[in-house]
């Protein structure tokens, strides 16, 4: 099966390392994909706040484009790695399904630009693809450098698992943990998995946003995690890039590696760190390398 890859705006800029690591992992696991042609902004949070209809149209155009691009394929599976994109695509499908009148309006509008929206596409998060399509067993088989001795705090963020996503539990998701257990890591039990990181408030109202990221980092450290893994570009950005600001504000030390789950998985698959965009991180995960080497990689 082949997937349609919908990057969204952030995977082309601040989340570039997410794109690099995701595609490297897909390649390593022989997952076939094509990037969606001429995709547009998903219409996420900020758009919804101004004009909801237009936000739905934006999302619907992407879905329709995907359906057109994969006309010949049996199934249209859109992989949306950014949580905000993922959520809004799901939300749009659900909304149009529940509101036939709006569906008719939007369908007609899309028709005018030569697109057909048939709602048959499936919206998938990469975690969902890895756990449910590839399977934990297969991934275990492919692990090259087990993450032995590394304590991982998986952080899913808010919109990855709620409110429309169904591949995991909305309150205590476990799929990412399963991946890392398969990769030989220890996973940290914590309650911050889906707590808000501050989202776009870090750019707008920092007084409110920084404490949110702080709580997450603090809890991860308290539970002796070596690394926090994220599945959304905004989460990774907030949790990694504001650590200095957070430390200055709370007079504390929150230094901890915050990397994309695909980067950590890529390391476990034995991929070249450069290919995984590790060089784009603010701090190189020396700590992880040390543990991995100390743990003497066992080749399976």
């Amino acid at each position: 099966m082949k997937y349609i890859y919908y990057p969204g705006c952030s995977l082309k800029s601040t989340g570039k390392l997410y794109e690099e690591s995701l595609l490297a992992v897909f390649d390593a696991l022989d997952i076939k994909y094509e990037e969606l042609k001429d995709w547009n902004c998903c219409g996420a949070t900020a758009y919804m706040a101004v004009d909801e209809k237009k936000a739905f149209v934006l999302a619907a155009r992407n879905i329709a484009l995907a359906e057109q691009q994969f006309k010949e394929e049996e199934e249209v599976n859109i992989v949306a790695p950014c949580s905000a994109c993922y959520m809004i695509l799901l939300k749009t499908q659900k909304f149009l399904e529940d509101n036939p009148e709006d569906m008719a309006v939007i369908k007609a509008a899309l028709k005018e630009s030569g697109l057909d929206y048939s709602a048959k596409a499936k919206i998938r998060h990469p975690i969902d693809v890895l756990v449910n399509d590839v399977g934990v067993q297969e991934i275990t088989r492919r692990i090259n450098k087990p993450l032995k001795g590394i304590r991982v705090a998986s952080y899913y963020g808010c919109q990855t698992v709620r409110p429309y996503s169904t591949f995991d539990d909305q309150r205590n998701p476990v799929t990412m943990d399963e991946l890392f257990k398969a990769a030989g890591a220890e996973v940290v039990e914590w309650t911050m998995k889906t707590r808000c990181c501050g989202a776009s408030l870090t750019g707008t109202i920092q007084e409110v946003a920084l404490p949110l990221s702080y709580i997450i980092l603090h809890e991860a450290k308290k539970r002796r995690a070596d690394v926090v893994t994220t599945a959304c570009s905004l989460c990774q950005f907030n949790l990694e890039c504001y650590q200095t600001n957070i430390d200055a504000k709370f007079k504390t030390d929150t230094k901890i590696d915050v990397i994309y789950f695909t980067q950590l998985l890529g390391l476990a698959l034995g991929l070249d760190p450069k290919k995984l965009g590790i060089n784009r991180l603010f701090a190189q995960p020396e700590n992880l390398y040390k543990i991995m080497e100390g743990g003497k990689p066992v080749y399976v």
Partner: protein
Amino acid sequence: MDKTVFAESFALDNAAKDIVEIRRRIKYEGELDKSFRDKIAKSAHGEKLYGCIQCGTCSAACPVSHYMDYTPRKIIQMVREGFKEEVLTSSTVWLCASCYACTVECPKGIKITDVMYALKRESILGNYYPKKSPASILANNFFNQVLNNGRNSEGPLLIKMYLKTNPFMLFKNMALGFKLWMRGRISLKTEKIKDRKALKKLLQSVEDKSNYKVKVNSSSLKEASAV
């Protein structure tokens, strides 16, 4: 608005008004906007706001409720009572990070996040939003950028936002921006899709048919600026 009503009904003289700022903390029934609830309910897709049992689960689940001037539970109640100006000028609307924690937990299945979105839109449409608030400026700039280019370019977007709201923030965040730029994670280029014309047409075509077109009467505007 509170101030004027108070002054009128109690014949407070001007001298007294200058000494202390007098604000009434309650509202009389006649001052409430009873149609507000239905408007918001409609904009949030028929949310059954009547059904709220004021249990406060949403406020407890909300990670930012302790910064809001009215918690999500209060906002729901105020919307159904018709406290239009208070709700639309509140910080709550712009502090909501759309994390959906409240929506998932509400025992009555009320989609509070969608209500917050409806309030954001209403606040912009009715011109109630705080003009210098970065959150609303960001939303607006983002909107225009996507309308014209089809994509969002984080670099130019943030710079514009800081210039419009708080240029000092731009300066403060420069080091961060530079670090990102060094790592190829941000650019000043404006991203564009190929089929911009078609996209613009597409977006405009839903404009007229959109059921969300509220005409704002000028009196409510004046009231808003008086508060």
